[in-house]
């Protein structure tokens, strides 16, 4: 069964009686444990789609099922990391993670939740890095679905690489992988992390690619492989040239 099932989704931003159509008749099926990257230029609607999946925006029309149930609003079975923010600035790193755990897992006692918060902060390393703490919180919430909106785009190359590796490692540790929807405009990042890459243009999925590498992935081996180079060339062509390209799957 698909854990995320989106069909015929349409969304417009309304402003003073004028409608700005952002997503048009969108279909998206994601299997449990799948890592899907959505890439596209800014303004193509990829962040809007993520906000709809998070329950922050309501679609104009279409069906949206999470684990078979219609989506009505935000829920802790979906943890989200936003591009620039996520944490509450008045809380410490520890309190932020703890707050997420308490919201998502009310069955845990205060000391259990505290212990878990410490464990995840240790896992991500530096607690003065807001991105790492945001990821620690999202993972500690033990949600089935992770929604990540360009989480690494504001970082320098070194931190970005480290966090990509960390995400790969953390997602793989406990047997059953989480389902991830990852929005990015970084082609290299998409190929490194995803099982499937969807290219979005003007509110529609224009192309779909399956990433062939096995997990856990090694950064250097992946980057130097010929499949990586082929995939990257195709994506760059899509990204920077308006040419029609055949994809490796019918779409």
């Amino acid at each position, binding site marked *: 069964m698909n854990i995320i099932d989106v069909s015929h989704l349409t969304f417009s931003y309304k402003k003073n009686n004028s409608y700005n159509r952002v997503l048009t008749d969108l279909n998206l099926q994601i299997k449990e444990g799948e890592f899907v990257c959505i890439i596209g230029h800014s303004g193509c609607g990829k962040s809007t789609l993520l*906000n709809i999946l*998070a*329950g*922050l925006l309501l679609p104009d029309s279409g069906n949206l099922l999470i684990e078979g149930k219609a989506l009505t*609003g*935000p*829920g*802790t079975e*979906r*943890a*989200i990391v*936003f591009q*620039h*923010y*996520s*944490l*509450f*600035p*008045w*809380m410490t790193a520890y309190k932020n993670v703890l*707050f*997420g755990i308490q*919201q*998502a897992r009310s069955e845990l006692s205060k000391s259990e939740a505290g212990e878990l918060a410490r464990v995840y902060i240790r896992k991500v390393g530096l607690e003065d890095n807001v991105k790492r703490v945001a990821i620690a919180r999202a993972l500690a919430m033990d949600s089935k679905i992770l929604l990540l909106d360009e989480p690494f785009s504001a970082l320098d190359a070194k931190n970005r690489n480290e966090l990509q590796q960390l995400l790969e490692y953390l997602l793989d540790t406990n047997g059953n992988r989480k389902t991830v929807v990852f929005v990015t405009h970084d082609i290299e990042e998409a190929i490194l992390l995803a099982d499937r890459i969807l290219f979005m243009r003007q509110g529609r999925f224009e192309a779909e690619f399956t990433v062939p590498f096995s997990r856990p992935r090694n950064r250097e081996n992946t980057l130097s492989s010929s499949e990586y180079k082929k995939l990257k060339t195709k994506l760059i062509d899509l990204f920077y040239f308006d040419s029609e390209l055949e994809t490796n799957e019918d779409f």
Partner: protein
Amino acid sequence: MKIFSKSFFIAHFIMIVLIILVNIPGQKSVEDSKALLVGIFIIELIYLYKLILKRKNVVALSDIMIIVWSILLLWEIATTQLNLLHPVLVPNPEDVFHVFASQYNMLLLCVASSMELLVIGTFFGIGLGLGLGLPVGWIPRLREIFYPIANVLTPIPPVVYAPYLIALMPTFRSASAVVIFLGIFWPTFLSIIIRVNSIEPHILDSAKVLNVNNKTMIRKILLPYVIPSVISGLKVTMITSVMLLTFAEMMGATRGMGFYIINYTHYANYTNVVAGIILVGIVVTLLNWFINIIQNKAIKWQ
């Protein structure tokens, strides 16, 4: 920064002239001028403390002292030496400072009484303004009811209903506390509603995706979100409180700083009136200093 600037020497030169003038005979009604000398000594001590231990804006500090000593000196010369001003309307500094020494106990009682009302009124004003403003700002239905009401009631200056409240309330003190309370409550309530309503979208989204309920939202998200604005508004709040307090005390109290001033005004004893005004100045300065400490603590926490 240079401590011993030109301003430093000019300030001390004026101070020495002032001390000499205080010690030579003139138009003074009190026997000794010890109180004024002690006052000068205390001002000098504060000045030296800021100059040597704080070392911030040392030249400007000395310039300020030139102005302070010059005003005292002009006051001293005009009243005790040249007799330029009406002795009843403009008392000399020796007499004014003597009030602090002779009415020490009474002045302290007045300050204590005023502070009690000020703290009670301000505490409940801010407390209820926050406690009610947060849920009203957050829950749309409550906001739609109470925001228009607050908009109508907030701009009414509390001083216009102070006389009526004094007639209405059982004791004068309760009336004063209510005047301060209302003067603080409505602006706090209104500003909290507006602040909650204009919460940054990303904070709101971050909270929404964690599926927080209303209670958690108000206690864990909105309260810490609005607290800095309450703390940064404390100075204005304090000025409003003192204004309302002294005004209310002038209307029929038997204690407090406002009472002290209006009481001696009725007897045309302007020496005590001027002393009372200086006292209010000192109290407000101390309150300001206290608020600064709170604000600095809060900035560290942010």
